[in-house]
């Protein structure tokens, strides 16, 4: 019989289910802003600058979709993963941590 691991949990006799990714994120960062918590499935975390807001949202498949989800037009924000800049066509994978830095100065 399959035993539960860090991504799964036992649900009743002989039954395993995959944990909600949001639970793990909230355990690590209880104060993170959760966008659309009712949506199930894979999620990503985002740092939005210059406000330095940490947020968690349902995984967009591409950088272009991420910008749209944040209501940002292309070329108004940098998007980076692990220190690497990403063009709008690049894929985003589950559980990734993404930096979004708006470029428009307000002063």
């Amino acid at each position, binding site marked *: 019989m399959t035993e539960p691991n860090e991504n799964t949990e036992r649900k009743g006799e002989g039954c395993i289910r995959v944990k909600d990714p949001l639970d793990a994120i909230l355990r690590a960062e209880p104060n993170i802003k959760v966008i659309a918590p009712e949506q199930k499935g894979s999620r990503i975390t985002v740092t939005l600058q210059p406000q330095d807001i940490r947020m968690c949202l349902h995984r967009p498949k591409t950088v272009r979709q991420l910008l749209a989800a944040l209501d940002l037009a292309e*070329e108004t924000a*940098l998007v980076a993963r692990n220190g690497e*800049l990403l*063009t*709008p066509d690049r894929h985003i994978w589950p559980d990734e941590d993404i930096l979004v830095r708006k*470029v428009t*100065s*307000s*002063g």
Partner: protein
Amino acid sequence: MKCKVCKDTAVVALRSHNSAFCAKCFKTFFRREVERGIHAQGLLESADRILVALSGGKDSLALMLELSLMGYDVTGLHIDLDIPRSSAAARGHVERFCARHGLPLIVKELKEEGLSIPLVKDALTRPVCSACGKIKRHFFNKIAMEGGFTAVATGHNLDDEAARLFSNTLRWDVGYLSDQGPRLEGENGFVRKIKPLWRLTEFETANYAFLMGIENHYAPCPYSPGATFSTLKGLLQKLEAAMPGRKLDFYQGFLTRGRPAFAREQAVSGEALAPCAECGYPTSSGDHICGVCRIRHAVREKA
């Protein structure tokens, strides 16, 4: 998306240039755009001594770094506005940046002039932003004149310039439209002012700053909601999204075909400059003292 030049994975996509670049090729692109901007408008000679105004933001730091890498003689000038929390953070970014890159820096504290921006804000009934800009420009020029610099460079980018042009056009402000541009001549007590990043968008300078590892100050000024300019930039950004390249067309077209006409008009009807009776620097105010000296009076009266 692949780099247009070397076919490596692209990290920056630019719709207005119908191109994408890897990190190395983007830096080359950035250098060429700065060079084109300098040469097209005759901004600099190799012998120039350049005072670069450093706010601590991405644009001014990117400009300082790129001009130094191009071999120009650059010195940074940071004006410490003495705004609680905000100014110390901005100054810290500038000082660390210059120390890291071994670049000379002058820091001017407005506090020692009795012109701390919080005091100015309390003394004026109008918004402080225009007074703050006036004071900064005054000291850019004064320090450049006294230090023997031949040009003052600021980090204004294409978005700043297009938004400014849009604003001036909406008001048909002939005075501003007659001399807006990347080069303002040095004459009558003014050092030449230049804007070498005028061909580059805010997005492009942000990418450059990121790729060059520049740690910049990005918190907005607590006294400046920036509403007017943000609105204008937002409108232009929507236009650019629908018609890539239109922002540069708008600005370049003005420089070649619009500005000369406004300059002719201003030559006929414009106000003459005269030295300020108190500080000696030129003013067009017509009442003997310049705007900065008037602000000094207002602060003293309030105290």
